[in-house]
């Protein structure tokens, strides 16, 4: 590289110094033999005699620059010659730009493109084929698209099959998101599906603190109180790896939230993340969903209450939701959907329910007054004896009192046994957390089924111990 550069440099020096002066004499003397290439030697001699340059051919040769292009020396003699040389040079450059290797590479590239194109066409053609069997047709939900090779049918089959390639990623990971309902004695009347972000918690970022996550005021009470009426399912919009830790922190004893679901359980369609409640493995008449995004409820809007996103400011919205949800769970109803949809604006459900409740209370006290006029022997005797007559309570209040009592009871139980719960969890973690690489490769990660089996065994042992 360096050598070539220096040669070019030298050449330019030579052409500048050596050529300018001798031209005139050369023209007169050697004009005839200029074009004859045979007479190189004499010409060179002529040149070497006259130039002032110190760098003659001899010296250059000694220095290792042997093949100086003689043409370069003569180039300025004639414009045409120069042009010719330049043309030749550019042609050479063009040739040099495309070596045989380049040409080979280009050929391979062309072959590759052609193969891709042909492969693509073949693939599309293959996807246009008739249905393989009825099952495929049913799986792709294409009963109205028959066999046959009309362009329309072919296109429809193609689009169905092409779409099914992508549904692997957009469909929920599991067919049934939840295990079957709990045994009768453990069953709560309804299932409550809550989203995580911007309903129960809010995350914000700033330059001073980075990411911070806030719990919504009243969250613990909300979960703790409603867990006696509802099977609470946390259905987060974010992926499991991002939300799992937050979710388990909300409920460290696993006492309130029955199940956690994450983005993997969502259906992704047209840029919308949809939480399909029909996959929950529960009676849809007994499912209430509270979410902050209209899109996630787009499959079952009648089951859902869409509320405003929580922006992280203190409020008591979760607490104010409790009366309605409690009422809903304690009424003997087969289907929650008609009740939910009897509210005009479901995002405003708290206010609407407060008005209704007030009406209900007024009605009740009116009825009470009517009933109070009827003779009541017990009250009458109590009055006679001078005992205070307790005002009968509104059923809603009774429910409320009962719920509160039970909530406090459960809290006490939790507090007493908190250390035991945590210890047990730690034990399980130790047993299944120690996953060596060898074990991971040979046996795979510990399956949830195994963990549950061990848990079952433990519970059995515990019961036996108690019986003794």
């Amino acid at each position, binding site marked *: 590289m360096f050598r070539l550069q220096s040669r070019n440099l030298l050449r330019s020096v030579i052409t500048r110094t050596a050529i300018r002066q001798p031209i005139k004499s050369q023209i007169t003397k050697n004009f005839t033999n200029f074009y004859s290439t045979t007479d190189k030697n004499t010409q060179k001699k002529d040149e070497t005699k006259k130039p002032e340059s110190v760098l003659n051919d001899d010296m250059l040769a000694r220095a290792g620059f042997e093949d100086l292009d003689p043409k370069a020396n003569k180039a300025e003699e004639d414009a045409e010659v120069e042009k010719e040389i330049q043309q030749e040079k550019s042609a050479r450059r063009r040739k040099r730009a495309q070596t045989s290797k380049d040409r080979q590479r280009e050929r391979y590239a062309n072959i590759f493109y052609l193969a891709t194109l042909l492969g693509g066409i073949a693939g599309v053609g293959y996807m246009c084929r008739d249905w393989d069997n009825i099952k495929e047709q049913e799986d792709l939900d294409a009963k109205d698209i028959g066999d046959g090779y009309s362009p329309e049918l072919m296109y429809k089959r193609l689009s169905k099959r092409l779409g099914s390639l992508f549904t692997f990623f957009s469909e929920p990971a599991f067919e049934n998101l939840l295990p079957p309902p709990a045994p009768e004695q*453990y069953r709560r009347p309804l299932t409550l599906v809550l989203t995580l972000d911007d309903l129960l918690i809010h995350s914000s970022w700033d330059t001073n603190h980075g990411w911070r996550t806030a719990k919504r005021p009243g969250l613990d009470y909300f979960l703790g109180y409603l867990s006696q009426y509802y099977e609470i399912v946390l259905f987060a919009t974010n992926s499991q790896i991002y939300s799992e830790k937050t979710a388990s922190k909300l409920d460290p004893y696993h006492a309130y939230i029955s199940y956690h679901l994450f983005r993997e359980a969502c259906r992704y369609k047209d840029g919308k993340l949809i939480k399909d409640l029909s996959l929950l493995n529960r009676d849809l008449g007994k499912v209430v969903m509270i979410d902050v995004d209209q899109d996630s409820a787009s499959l079952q809007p009648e089951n859902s209450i869409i509320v405003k996103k929580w922006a992280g400011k203190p409020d008591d919205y979760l607490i104010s939701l409790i009366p309605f949800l409690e009422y809903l769970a304690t009424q003997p109803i087969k289907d929650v959907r008609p009740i939910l949809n009897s509210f005009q604006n479901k995002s405003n459900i708290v206010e609407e329910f407060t008005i209704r409740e007030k009406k209900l209370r007024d009605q009740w006290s009116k009825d009470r007054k009517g009933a109070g006029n009827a003779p009541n022997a017990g009250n009458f005797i109590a009055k006679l004896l001078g005992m205070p007559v307790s005002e009968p309570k509104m059923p809603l209040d009774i429910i409320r009192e009962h719920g509160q009592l039970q909530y406090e009871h459960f809290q006490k139980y939790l507090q007493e046994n908190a250390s035991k719960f945590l210890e047990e969890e730690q034990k399980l973690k130790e047993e299944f957390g120690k996953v060596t690489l060898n074990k991971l490769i040979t046996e795979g990660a510990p399956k949830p089924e195994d963990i*549950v089996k061990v848990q079952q065994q433990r519970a059995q042992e515990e*019961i036996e111990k108690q019986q003794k």
Partner: protein
Amino acid sequence: MSADHTRDPCPIVILNDFGGAFAMGAIGGCVWHGIKGFRNSPYGERGYGALSAIKQRAPRVGGNLGVWGGLFSIFDCSVKAIRKREDAWNAVIAGFFTGGALAIRGGWKHTRNSAITCACLLGVFEGVGMMMQRLQAQPTMAPVYPEEPQALAA
């Protein structure tokens, strides 16, 4: 808000990505050019050869990778802001533009090919990542219910 709390939100993450990619490239370049410099030096000069090769070339590898990472992050953020969606296509589109932008001095043909290649590569990455995530996702299991219901479990 963004899902991943290990990363900063969008405009700032570009800086992080640039630095991260630079560090990655610099460390990788150290290993690569250290070995190369070591092997290509005469006996007796091998340590010095490795060191000088690292000094000369590792920062350049880091810089190249850093530019790639920073550019990718810029495009990723822009695509997110325009589409207002968060899915795998963001990375594919951002990869397409990154590949194209880096190859734009090589002419239209080169730009096009490199953009498509880069997009395909990132598509494969994203696909594999999503597949892994799905395979790792575990079905929710029912808790253990003792035969006798506890008094307080109601």
